[in-house]
């Protein structure tokens, strides 16, 4: 099921309003994306939980059974620039 990159970003930002989201269309087919998500919510929690927050934001619209959706949430430890 193809999705627009903007749609993915909107879903992630709805769940993580502070997130900075970078979407990359891996195959150029609108069906294989990688996302880098940086959010303060990820600080101090396990990598699995970081990914699960992003998966939950996409409400099951990611991948099929055997199709990993490469996504790299990163904790943001630095203070935002003033």
């Amino acid at each position, binding site marked *: 099921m193809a999705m627009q990159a903007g749609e993915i970003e909107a879903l992630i930002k709805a769940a993580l309003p502070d997130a900075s989201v970078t979407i990359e269309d891996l195959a150029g087919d609108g069906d294989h994306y990688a996302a880098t998500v940086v959010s303060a919510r990820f600080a101090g929690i*396990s*990598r*699995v939980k970081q*990914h*699960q927050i992003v*998966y939950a934001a996409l409400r099951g619209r990611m991948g099929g*059974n055997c199709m*990993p*959706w490469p996504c790299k949430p990163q904790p943001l430890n630095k203070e935002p620039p003033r």
Partner: protein
Amino acid sequence: MTTTVERIKSEISENPVMLYMKGTAMFPQCGFSARVVQILTHMGVPFKTANVLEDGELREGIKTFSNWPTIPQLYVKGEFVGGCDIITEMFQSGELSTLLTEQGIQHEATA
């Protein structure tokens, strides 16, 4: 009759390092599973595996159990730590070694 969830709970509590994978440690049947086996073997970590290809209920059940869509899945002291990408990153950054040390699991220092 043991349900799949009961089976998983008992395996991850009885085995400090438990890997759900496709194939076996000796004969992995998926590149992602093979990579996690390779990392654990390289680190000299004792671990047990379950082959999801031999049990369709386990194959689906483990995904529901962890709320994680892919296999392999590595559990340390009953906690789901990650799949192939996370384990590879944690190995490279040294986090996996730190976690094993914190959990009191013997292993060789990473190179």
